[in-house]
């Protein structure tokens, strides 16, 4: 189906912590987050960057959790926040850099840090850098890119 260009409607909701995580999430995470939030994805908030970097979730257990995806995040040492993204139920054990996760992370950290412009690192093995701006109902996500290869498909 070809895309139909309609205005996107993504309403803000008042944020509230969830007290009871979905079944199996904490076991799969291998660590207990300070807070858990929900948008499209679950957002597990940790206290520091190293915990997020060193986290080794059990992907098989995570696949069984009823969710779209899991974001883990923490304040960064040299940047405003860091994150990682796991969606084993969608065929992605860990995504190296995830623009769409920042549609949720930007409003979250913008409010928490009281800043509209934020520098973010996704601390996967490959690593990614995102410059972020909270524009209210929309977000601006900026980054660089580099050409790896160029070719031709023959059909």
């Amino acid at each position, binding site marked *: 189906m070809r895309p139909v260009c309609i205005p996107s409607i993504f309403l803000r909701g008042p944020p509230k912590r969830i007290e009871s995580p979905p079944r199996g999430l904490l076991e799969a995470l291998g660590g207990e987050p300070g807070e858990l939030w929900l948008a499209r994805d679950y957002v597990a908030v940790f206290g520091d960057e190293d915990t997020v970097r060193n986290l080794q979730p059990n992907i098989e257990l995570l696949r069984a959790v009823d969710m779209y995806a899991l974001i883990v995040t923490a304040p960064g040492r040299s940047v405003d926040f860091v994150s990682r993204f796991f969606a084993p139920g969608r*065929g*992605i054990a860990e995504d190296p850099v995830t623009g769409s996760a920042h549609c949720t992370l930007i409003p979250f950290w913008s409010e928490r840090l009281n800043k509209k412009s934020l520098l973010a690192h996704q601390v996967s093995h490959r690593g990614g850098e995102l410059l972020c701006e909270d524009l209210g109902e929309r977000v601006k*996500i900026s980054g660089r890119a580099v050409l790896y290869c160029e070719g031709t498909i023959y059909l």
Partner: protein
Amino acid sequence: MRIPLYQVDAFTSRVFGGNPAAVCPLDHWLGDATLQAIAAENNLSETAFFTGNSDLRELRWFTPAVEVDLCGHATLASAFVILERLEPKRREVRFCSRSGELRVTREAGLYSLDFPSRPAKAH
């Protein structure tokens, strides 16, 4: 038929970093099964396809398994291909997608995506 194929590492300034995406500019839409087969063959997390001209392009994203509603890094990668290779004099690209209109602007090598906000909320 020949289709150009680019592989771009997005959200990074070095090869092998960031998130790799495949990008295929098309003269016209091919059947969904063909688009899906190309994405499966590429076997990257996302392959982006676009059609259209400078004013407005239609953009779609496929994983190796399904078509998806929104993909940031493949959108950045598509804008990179357009603004670096296809139309280097331009500074902005407008896409029409399943997630509405998406704009990407380039300034000093930095690509900016204007995306819908999706805040976390009560659960």
